[in-house]
């Protein structure tokens, strides 16, 4: 029972990372109709810059800010240089161009920081354990990640639902030509949305950094999981991203713990579990749980 509770929390913590990734992907897709494979690269940039900054300065907080800022700036640059030329193209062209960007970024970090994986330690202040129930110590940092992720998502929900910018974003996802005609500068709105998604991805990279080996190509496994989340939840829907990330994060974590105890084929089966879940969801809801019916 204690193991179950602990793993459930681990699952929620993975969900938070996925949600930060998936919300950016789904916003960018919903509003600009852009399929961005390079979203994982922004995750990687966040983690690398945070690890490097923390290593040089000794301050974890500075690393967090630097990592998120680096992803934000990288997002703005690739939006201005590459992405805005792709909005009018079909998904195939977008897949290819962003595939090229992945090759570039994966090699760039190798060039800058070498091929040896970097580490980002848990910040000292959050290094301890708390007893969630008596006799069950749980790492404080993981709880802090869950809390931070929830706070960021609430802030995002407020931004999208409660502000003028958010109103424009929502309007843009319904009919971008119309809001252009109403005098909204679409170009700036798109840059903003893309950079926002990049910021969230960078943040996810920093927060998940202590659990991962920070190395070239680290963004792609998480990107593919985030795709599964977006597809399950329904492309363009933030509500769907929340539901999808909880489903994927918890299923994946619990599957990895409990399936190997049931069957010998457990390790392979548990890696495949979420893709089976996705196939089942799509067989029933072809546009995802909260997707628009076509």
């Amino acid at each position, binding site marked *: 029972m204690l193991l179950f509770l602990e793993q459930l929390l681990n699952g929620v913590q993975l969900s938070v990372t996925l949600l930060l990734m998936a919300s950016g992907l789904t916003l960018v897709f919903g509003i600009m109709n852009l399929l961005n494979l390079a979203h994982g690269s922004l995750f990687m940039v966040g983690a690398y810059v945070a690890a490097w900054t923390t290593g040089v300065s000794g301050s974890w907080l500075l690393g967090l800010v630097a990592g998120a800022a680096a992803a934000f700036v990288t997002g703005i640059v690739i939006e201005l240089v590459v992405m805005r030329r792709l909005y009018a193209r079909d*998904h195939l062209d977008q897949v290819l161009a962003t595939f090229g960007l992945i090759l570039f970024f994966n*090699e760039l970090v190798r060039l800058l920081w070498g091929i040896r994986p970097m580490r980002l330690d848990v910040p000292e202040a959050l290094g301890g354990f708390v007893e969630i129930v008596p006799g069950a110590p749980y790492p404080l940092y993981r709880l802090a990640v869950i809390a931070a992720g929830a706070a960021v998502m609430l802030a995002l929900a407020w931004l999208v639902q409660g502000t003028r910018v958010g109103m424009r974003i929502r309007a843009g996802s319904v009919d971008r030509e119309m809001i252009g005609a109403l005098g909204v500068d679409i170009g700036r709105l798109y840059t903003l949305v893309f950079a926002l998604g990049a910021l969230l991805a960078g943040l996810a990279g920093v927060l998940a950094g202590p659990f991962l080996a920070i190395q070239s190509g680290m963004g792609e496994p998480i990107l593919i999981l985030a795709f599964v989340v977006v597809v399950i939840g329904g492309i363009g829907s933030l509500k769907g991203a929340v539901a999808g990330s909880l489903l994927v994060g918890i299923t994946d974590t619990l599957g990895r713990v409990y399936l190997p105890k049931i069957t010998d084929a457990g390790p392979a089966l548990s890696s495949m579990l979420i893709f089976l879940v996705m196939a089942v969801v799509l067989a029933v809801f072809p546009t995802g749980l909260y997707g628009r019916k076509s």
Partner: protein
Amino acid sequence: MPPLLRDALPFLVLAVAPVVATLAGADWLVPVFTRMVVFALAAMALDFILGVGGMVSLGHAAFFAVGGYVVGIGSQHVAESTPTPFGLPGWDDLLISLPLAFTVGVLIALPFGWVSLRTRGAYFIMITLALAQMVYYGLVGLTSYGGDDGISMWWGRNTVAGAALPNRLALHFLCLGLLVAAFVVLKRLCAAPFGRVLDGARQNEARMRALGYRPLPYQIGAFALSGGIVAVAGALMANVDEFVSPGMGHWTISGELLVIVILGGIGSLSGAVWGAVVLLGLEEGLKEITEHWPILLGPLLVVIVLFARGGLTGLLDRLGSRRTQGGDDAGGA
């Protein structure tokens, strides 16, 4: 350039270049060209569903890897004289492993196609990607076949009807023969009613239905055929490298196949051969310049996508369009 020459030229290059290399005493170059042939075969199968059927699959590496493992698993059991899981003896002859790879590829592609074709557009891309990841992790989990490390076929490649292939050149021309055969079959299929229905469904599914066709069985059939051919390419790749690993199913291979199709020009089939020759040639060339070659290839791909629409065959058609009005109908996805 006239269409016939445009189609035949890359095949000629792949037939002549390894012979020249061997005569010049550089027979270590032959596998480089064989790789081009194998990737051209896989990319051509992808082009069939992408260019004609409008299905953008980012998961074809799964079939490639499965084909490779059909060869690897069969020959491991022969080398170790152990029976395969169902009590059958192992196999290490291409006359068995190639048809078997095709069959397994088709059998896996059928359910994958069925699930993926519940959706369209971006969903389709992401689902094929996710299903391929599932296969990838499944292969990593095959601990009795090397797990992460795969199978190193130190016992050598498959025989052909019991006889060992004499040299690399023989394997190369075997692969090239299969590539030509695939080209002829797929080209015929494009012109047959099967291909016309696929093409029609890509352009306008609602109208095809109004004409009384159900596109879905055609699309699933094409997807399965494509998966089978890619598995054959994977089986050949295993024989070229004498090595299989889950890496064959890595999603970057799916991406590379898409790049080859786009680079060559969508929907022309021979474009896949052009694309494979140019992309793999480019990779080899860039490797000579710097070990960090992806940092050059990445931006190059972006530039190609942004500025060279229609790919190489499109470019070649435009060169020849002064005489022949209009080129092939190479549509987008």
